[in-house]
């Protein structure tokens, strides 16, 4: 019996020490794959935060437009709706933002649906929509003649 047999752990193959190159490459590959899998998660989170910010800005823009509608004279409402544009700040922050409005009259008042779409997944098909009612007593809420 060789003198080093006494210190070799039981079950350890005789004559083998350390790792082979293949094992090291495999381990490095696994670590690299793990790191590479984590990076897209960070990118995705950053995009989600940016999209959340855009949604807040878009929602505020719709609410601001609804407030402006309340101050429009009844005879100027159609012209105002036809010329709706997003504010410069929103145009700079929300890519390709487009604002549209649909008017509907009823005995309860005037219903205006404001829709804002921009370049984001599904946003052109499902624009962010805010519906506001202009009661007959408000400046812009008189029914059309």
């Amino acid at each position: 019996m060789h003198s080093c047999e006494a210190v070799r752990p039981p079950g350890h193959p005789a004559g083998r020490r350390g790792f082979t190159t293949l094992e090291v490459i495999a381990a490095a590959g696994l670590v690299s794959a793990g790191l590479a899998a984590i990076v897209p998660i960070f990118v995705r989170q950053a995009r989600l935060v940016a999209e959340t910010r855009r949604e807040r800005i878009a929602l505020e823009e719709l609410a601001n437009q609804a407030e402006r509608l309340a101050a429009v004279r009844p005879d100027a409402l159609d012209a105002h709706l036809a010329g709706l544009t997003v504010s410069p700040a929103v145009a700079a922050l929300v890519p390709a933002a487009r604002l549209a409005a649909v008017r509907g009259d009823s005995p309860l008042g005037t219903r205006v649906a404001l829709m804002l779409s921009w370049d984001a997944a599904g946003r052109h098909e499902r624009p962010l929509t805010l519906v506001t009612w202009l009661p007959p007593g408000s400046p812009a809420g008189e029914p059309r003649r």
Partner: protein
Amino acid sequence: MMRRDRRHRSLDPCHAGVSLVELLAAMTAASVVMSAAVSLVHRGYALESRSRQTIADERTALRLARQLRADVHAADRVRWAAVPDEPWLIMIDMPTGTVTYATTAVGLERIVKPPVGMPSREDFTFSREASWVVRGDGSLVSLSGTSVEDRSRRPPLVIDIAAALATGSTLIHGGEP
């Protein structure tokens, strides 16, 4: 005798340990992997911190917009500051008291002074300093806030709130707080 032992050490099956070259190579590889991992963890924490602050700012902006519109809609009279450096921005007189929006170091403060009793305060605090501008036009009052340029990689804070006065309310430029 000693030189012979050193030369044949790697051939000795009982020899435990690694050569200097192997050690350096292993340390270099471990350093690269550790650097990548530490950098990733650091970026993760930084991104999480920025995201949390951005989301908190967005939430505060929405709360401010909702509150300001509710106050303006219920107002009898709205006064807005005559000069940009005025400590107060908007003063709203309503049947239940007076509401003042004033600037602070990190945002805005809403102070409610009822006719009887103690005033109450509500803070709209943002994660960075912002400059605020208020404008009045017809029956619309607008409050805009933009963050001051800093070295953070966060997007700038942009807040633009418009509120329409109710019929019969008056909008006044300036006035004593």
